[in-house]
């Protein structure tokens, strides 16, 4: 297992620096697109929440606060470990980098496990539209709108996180094993890091929208 190999830029780039810069810009541009994607959903959410403030506050009582909060902590910590991994990469500390990356992936997986358990609890408390949904007496029908948003929002977020975990594992099991991430060229890791932080930021918007409504 080589620690590092001599890298050459792809044919369209003049040098590795240009290749790394370009890859990072690519991710930022992609995140502009992602921001509008989730932004559209969150816009819809706020529009309906302003239209139906009471229904949304009532519906949010059934959201499992502790799951969301634990996940918030897990994800924020994972962003820290991700940055530490990139920092280690920049310093050329290979073992440290691998350790931090494993921690990042583990935290991401822990998030998904908690999320899965929360979905199980949601099913039991009958807040799954169509499949298992109980309309409580005296509650408005708009309550279901909240839960449609919940499932679409957390579902899409989970898919993004699964992709993020996949990317971290790809770095660990492929790029780093081949010795292609070095102190000279670690741009791919930074690209993954940027994406990871974005997934984290999405949760920063979903968390108050779902778990903190009507709990003040």
């Amino acid at each position, binding site marked *: 297992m080589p620690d590092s190999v001599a890298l050459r830029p*792809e*044919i*369209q780039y*003049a040098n590795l620096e*240009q290749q790394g*810069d*370009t890859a990072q*810009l*690519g991710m930022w*541009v*992609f995140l*502009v*697109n*992602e*921001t*509008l*994607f*989730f932004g*559209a*959903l969150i816009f*819809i959410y706020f*529009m*309906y929440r302003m*239209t*139906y403030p009471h*229904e949304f506050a009532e519906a949010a009582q059934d959201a499992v606060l502790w799951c969301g909060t634990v996940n918030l902590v897990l994800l924020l910590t994972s962003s820290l470990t991700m940055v530490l991994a990139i920092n280690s990469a920049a310093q050329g500390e290979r073992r440290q980098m691998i350790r931090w990356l494993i921690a990042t992936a583990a935290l991401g997986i822990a998030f998904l496990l908690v999320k899965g358990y929360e979905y199980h609890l949601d099913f039991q408390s009958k807040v799954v*539209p*169509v499949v298992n949904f109980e309309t409580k007496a005296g509650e*408005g*029908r*708009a309550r*279901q*709108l909240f839960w*449609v*948003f919940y499932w*679409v929002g957390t579902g899409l977020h989970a898919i993004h996180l699964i992709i993020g975990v996949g990317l971290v594992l790809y770095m660990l099991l492929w790029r780093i094993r081949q010795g292609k991430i070095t102190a000279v060229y670690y741009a791919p890791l930074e690209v993954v890091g940027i994406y990871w932080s974005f997934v984290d930021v999405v949760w920063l918007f979903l968390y108050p929208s779902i778990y903190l409504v009507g709990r003040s």
Partner: protein
Amino acid sequence: MSSTTAERAAAPDTAPPSEPSYLTAENTVASWLLTKDHKRIALLFFVSITFFFFVGGAAATLMRLNLATPEGLLQPSVYNRMFTMHGIIMVWFFLIPSIPTTFGNFFVPLMIGARDLAFPRVNLGSWYVFNLSGAVVLYSLIMGGADTGWTFYTPLSTSYANGYVFAAAMAVFINGFSTIMTSLNFIVTIHRMRAPGMTWMRLPLFIWATYAVSVVMLTATPVLAMDTFLLAVERFIGVGVFDPNLGGDPILWQHMFWFYSHPAVYIMILPAMGVASEIIPCYARRPIFGYAGMTVALMAIAILSFFVWAHHMFVAGISIYAGVVFSLLTFFVAVPSAIKVFNWTVSLHKGRISFDAPMLYALGFVLLFTIGGITGLMLATLGVDVDVHDTYFVIAHFHYIMVGATVSAFFGALHYWWPKMTGRLYPEMWARFAAILTYVGFNLTFFPQFILGYLGMPRRWYTYPAEWQSWNLLSSAGASILAVAYVLPLLYLGWSLFWGRKAGANPWRATGLEWSTPSPPPTHNFERTPVVTAIPYCYDPEHDSFVTQEGARYAG
């Protein structure tokens, strides 16, 4: 003035290439399907979108056949499905990808002096995603099609329509990923891959147009993606955010749809503007008038296009104040558009004009765009729009822009860059004939629809009162001419692939970097990275000389 440009002394060829051309470098099927070469991917896209152009065209043919007589030919439900599939396929599977994925893919790296796009694998992936979405839309079509109109208005699309709406919406959703991948690639490439000396204000206007359209694609498409995703969820499981039974708002769909689909109109027209800005100076042998103004106008159109969407909803129950504001904002978009038309026109002044096929297409583009634009202003006027809303007036207006202007520019680009892409010259006389036929056929097809709309014929109806038959018949007859004009290039361009005269590196004596490399270009585009020293379009009509962007001067 009458001689074709190719007959005049061509610029001297560069030295014989040391690398084989991109077409002959490898010959296996796998070398095409797994290629990372932007030029080959451009041709793959060309094949895909040409296929969908004819599928969408077949649906249009059935529609015009049906409307030739008041009694009609198709059953009403079949007619509904035909116009829906015509719209979906033409918009997302031809018009939006048309110029960017083919000529953009092929010429963005060549015109900025790069060896490839920034992300070749993403580029290839875009083609596969496009074909996946194409397969889904064909599935929807073959199973019986959707009948909601290309706009998928809720609650018709979520609750009442019978067709394969879910598949059609998913096709649009998947298609969006392809658009996003392509636009992301262009933005990053134009930012980071320009040759030395290729500053922003030396970029050819086609690059500026591609940049502007990529920005619009990147920021508008995700909103449509979320919109169609929520629609698919609602259609699939029966509960969703547009459902009035839950207190959801069906009009929300329209807002989000037009937030994408108005900019989408500019996604279709901006690259066409870029093409016209390349062709007109080259065939007028004169620098483009107001280069800086053109770049500002492109970006202004891109940005303003996001603030006018509700002009499609004047009768959908939005407030009168919103209507007034959106009407006013829509007028604002006309300003940069008019600047462009003005500049193209002035670019002809004191030029040494030759009416070769690309120029005929480009001039057709300007004329049809102007008619489409001016009728657009009529529609932006609140009172007029309420009167002619959902009539053939609207149909005629947007076909002037999307078909008349954009498809003309597409064919103009195809002829202009054909020698570069294939190394062969097309037969000039046939091409001129096709260009004029396009213009005649198009106006015959769609001008009567302005009149029908003004008389009050609603869009999407399969039948009409007998007294409107002559206009409808005229339109259908025009459509058959238009069909010939669209098939004709396929034949003579195909012929020229084998028997056309060999083109030199720069048959049109143009200034862009793409003409400094052999035709067809070698796999990695340039023998050595070009160094740019001049602004584009340095043509001198008086001496018939020109200076390429690399600073080489060629006398007349």
